[in-house]
């Protein structure tokens, strides 16, 4: 009878083990669509056998553990690709916006530039007409507005990027805290010998998401916690402690710092990966670059058109007027009544532009304001010289504008002498307007000619010719340069498309690989279900057989 009782016990263990296994299968099936879920499996092991008269007889079966299937290599790969995906996905939207702003359609900045110079060309056919003169002014204003609009669109994109970054900070902080929390729980559960399957799944999922957001890297420690770091090495989670990301406003831009209790750590932009690095890359590299190129283009159009316009004469006989408000420039303090009267000191005029020295010889043939202007312009120095009309004194001044925005110009006149008048010193930096605004107020002030005669179109022709001059970097026209800027945007966006597509593909493959290894297959689960069902049925049959045998034993005595 003792043997039957033992058999009954063994059958009982089998029943409960099969039930437990079916339970695990049921859980797997229930989580078939749960993202990041790893298939679990009951680990069965026999009870230790007992010695009966020299024979070791098994005592049944038990579920020793429920394990999740896991592949650390694949998980690492997925995190890595998520980082790339996050980076490129984040860039897509601002780049699409930039593509819209730097359009290649019929209405782009290049069109406005063409139209502006076309208006000058139109003026050459009828230089005395106030209508054509006004069109030139209006086209100048529209060109200025086109630059302003581009700038304001760029500012909007910039502010959108800052807002997106800001909104993601809270999301990242919540996830960091949760990882730290899970670290504590996993450590506790697994210290007791159990496996914290669900917690680990959840933590893996969060690490993957953090990798997408900030490119976080993770290392599993011996105590089963993970240490999370930014790609640059700064810590985010250590054991059960999470650092908090904080926003730092720098002017109109956003940067970040990490805080642990009272300690603040500055987190430079190059520390980040994932979406953060994508957004920061668009904001700080791509947009800064484009912004500088736009500024450069606007500056050159302004200064070159101004230089030519200042050399021309309005219908009122006045010369030295700027068409656009002048940018920062360097002018003589002294003003003189006649722009082409000689008698100035002669000798060597020394110019230094951004440290580059040029000596301009002034002699009795060119010792007038206009003579000095032409000598400087022919000297090869990186400045544009003009004779400008000073509104306050009513006289004329020699004015120098660097060909590259912001470069410092120094004028040394100490080697000039012997004339009846001196040009004197130059203002260190005369203030200028940053924006491109038309300054010519009256149509009669538009300098279409080199004389006040209404049919004189020579200066208008020279200004119109600037449209085809290789002024930008010595090789490009203005609208050609816009093409280069738009092509840069296009290349960035095209590259983003390619990398994003690649990252998506790779991630699909990796997720499929992961699912292939550790995911839930309904077919597998159903087959397992049948297997455990059959096991359960067999155990039940075994128990009823033992029951019958016990009945037989009990009924031996009637």
């Amino acid at each position: 009878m003792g043997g039957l009782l033992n058999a009954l016990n063994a059958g009982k263990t089998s029943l409960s083990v099969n039930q437990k296994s079916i339970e695990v299968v049921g859980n797997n099936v229930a989580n078939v669509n749960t993202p990041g879920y790893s298939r679990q499996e009951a680990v069965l092991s026999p009870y230790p056998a007992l010695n009966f008269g020299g024979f070791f007889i098994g005592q049944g079966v038990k579920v020793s553990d429920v394990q999740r299937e896991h592949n650390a290599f694949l998980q690492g790969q997925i995190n890595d690709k998520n980082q790339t995906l996050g980076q490129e996905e984040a860039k897509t939207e601002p780049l699409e916006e930039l593509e819209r702003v730097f359009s290649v359609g019929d209405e782009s900045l290049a069109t406005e530039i063409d139209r502006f110079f076309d208006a000058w060309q139109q003026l050459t056919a009828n230089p005395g007409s106030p209508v054509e003169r006004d069109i030139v002014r209006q086209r100048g204003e529209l060109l200025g507005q086109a630059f302003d609009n581009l700038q304001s669109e760029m500012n909007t994109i910039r502010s959108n990027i800052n807002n997106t970054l800001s909104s993601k900070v809270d999301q990242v902080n919540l996830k960091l805290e949760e990882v730290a929390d899970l670290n504590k729980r996993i450590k506790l559960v697994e210290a007791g010998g159990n496996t914290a399957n669900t917690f680990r799944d959840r933590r893996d999922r969060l690490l993957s998401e953090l990798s997408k957001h900030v490119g976080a890297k993770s290392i599993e420690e011996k105590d089963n916690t993970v240490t999370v770091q930014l790609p640059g090495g700064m810590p985010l989670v250590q054991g059960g402690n999470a650092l908090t990301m904080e926003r730092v406003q720098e002017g109109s831009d956003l940067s970040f710092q990490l805080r642990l209790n009272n300690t603040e750590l500055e987190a430079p932009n190059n520390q980040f990966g994932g979406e953060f690095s994508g957004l920061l890359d668009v904001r700080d590299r791509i947009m800064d670059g484009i912004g500088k190129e736009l500024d450069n283009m606007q500056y050159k159009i302004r200064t070159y058109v101004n230089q030519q316009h200042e050399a021309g004469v309005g219908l009122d006989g006045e010369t030295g007027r700027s068409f656009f408000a002048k940018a920062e420039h360097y002018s003589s303090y002294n003003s003189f009544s006649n722009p082409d009267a000689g008698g100035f000191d002669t000798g060597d005029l020394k110019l230094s532009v951004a440290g580059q020295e040029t000596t301009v010889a002034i002699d009795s043939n060119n010792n007038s304001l206009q003579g000095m202007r032409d000598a400087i312009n022919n000297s090869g120095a990186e400045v544009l010289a003009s004779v400008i009309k000073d509104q306050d004194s009513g006289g004329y001044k020699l004015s120098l504008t660097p060909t590259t925005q912001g470069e410092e110009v120094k004028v040394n006149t100490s080697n000039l002498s012997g004339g009846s008048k001196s040009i004197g010193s130059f203002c260190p930096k005369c203030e200028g307007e940053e924006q491109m605004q038309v300054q010519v107020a009256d149509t009669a002030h538009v300098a279409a000619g080199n004389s006040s005669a209404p049919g004189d179109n020579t200066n208008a022709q020279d200004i119109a010719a600037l449209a085809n001059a290789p002024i930008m970097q010595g090789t490009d026209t203005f609208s050609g340069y816009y093409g280069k800027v738009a092509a840069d945007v296009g290349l960035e966006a095209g590259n983003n498309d390619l990398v994003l597509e690649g990252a998506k593909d790779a991630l699909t493959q990796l997720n499929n690989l992961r699912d292939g290894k550790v995911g839930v297959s309904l077919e597998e689960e159903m087959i397992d279900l049948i297997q455990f069902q059959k096991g359960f049925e067999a155990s039940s049959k075994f128990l009823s057989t033992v029951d019958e045998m016990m009945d037989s034993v009990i009924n031996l005595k009637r």
Partner: protein
Amino acid sequence: MKSTMGTSFRAMNAEIARIQRGLEDLQKQAASGKKLNDPSDNPAAIRPVLTARGQIRASDRYIETMDRAMDEMKSMDTKMAHVENLMVQSKEQATYAINGSLGEDGLANLADQVSLFRDELRDSANFQVEGKHIFAGYKENTEPFVEDSSQFNGISAQGDIHNTTLEISPGERPPVDVNGRELFLGQTKSDKTDAEGNAILEQTGTDMFATLRKVELAMRGHEEKVVDETGTAIADAAYKDGNPETGIPRLVDGSNSPVTNASGDQIELTHNGEPVHLKQAVNEHGEALTLKDVKEHLTAYEFGSGEIDVDNVTDLSKPAYMHKDGSFAVVDKQGDPILMDGSGSPVEADYDGNGTNDSYVNLRDLQNTGTNGKPLKQEYIPKLTTQLDSLEDAADQERRLRGLLGNHHVRVENAQTTREETKVDLEEMLSRYEDADLVEVLTDLKQQQTALEAALNVTSKVASLSILNFM
């Protein structure tokens, strides 16, 4: 490796999304007709596209400008044809006057006719198109040839000598008009410049107005006489002793007696054998020049001291005068033009008749002129028969310039044709870069649609296959 529901659906989802993105791209191309919609569609094409668009726009402008220029050239040509007619008609009248046995009244009638031709010539020279004087150079809003009785040709020129140029292709700026000063007055830019570097004008051709005036005066009986700017024969004038036989004007005193030098020789008011005719020097902008403006070209003398530095002239703001041969009149210490002899020395005169020379001969402030301050403007009126050549010269001047205008017209016309052809080429190039090949797009669209249908079909088939159906 096993296949799970997740892997199947994820793969199918990715494929469907990819096909749909491709489809969306193709739909955009089909709807817009363009394959270059965003910079990323083809960054390498952006620059050629923008350049081509700019050039097409510039071509439109060039074509419009050239149309306009050709219209103006046509109007100018019509007016110039009329000028030629006037010259031919004047020649006919002159021939009639020579050949016919007309009495004084008949000749006066012909002279009136020629005078009217001169008025008509002035009207033509002041012709306006769209409110602009086409023969005024750059000063298109100024009447270029104003009637002026103080000049022999009866004209005060107000325009400048500039030719309007228009850019017909980058860097190519041909003149698209004929300048009035050159056409009607025979003036051109000399190689001399004023203090500001502007070219000084000289007379190298025929002054049409003066030519007609001479014909008219010859018909009025002044043949082979020297006349002043009013058309009065000097022989008849009170202040100059003109010799009708020789046509040589002489200096006279207040009582109309010839003034002599210390040697008792009469003083002929000629320059290089021609009666002295002074005109104020003018630069290319039509601005009248002073002595200061032309200082470097001047010679000055002080009586008793000989040649002096021009800077020592007391009043350099006085007008600078030129002789008909283009040389500047030499001035005295006061800045007035003086008479020079053939050897280049100032002519001296003994005004008070005391046997010693006491002054240079001032050509601007002649004694007894009654018109103090005016420079001498004398003209010799040749015989009418020899004036036929002058009329022919005037007509030739017109024909030469008209021929030049015609050549410029042809040049502009050719440039326009070339520009139109270039525009077509540019449009073709632009189209190649930015226009979608609709046949290709629609074929691709069909292909993608089929692929999408297949993907959807497979997805639904896979979804309907499940182990659960067999349990």
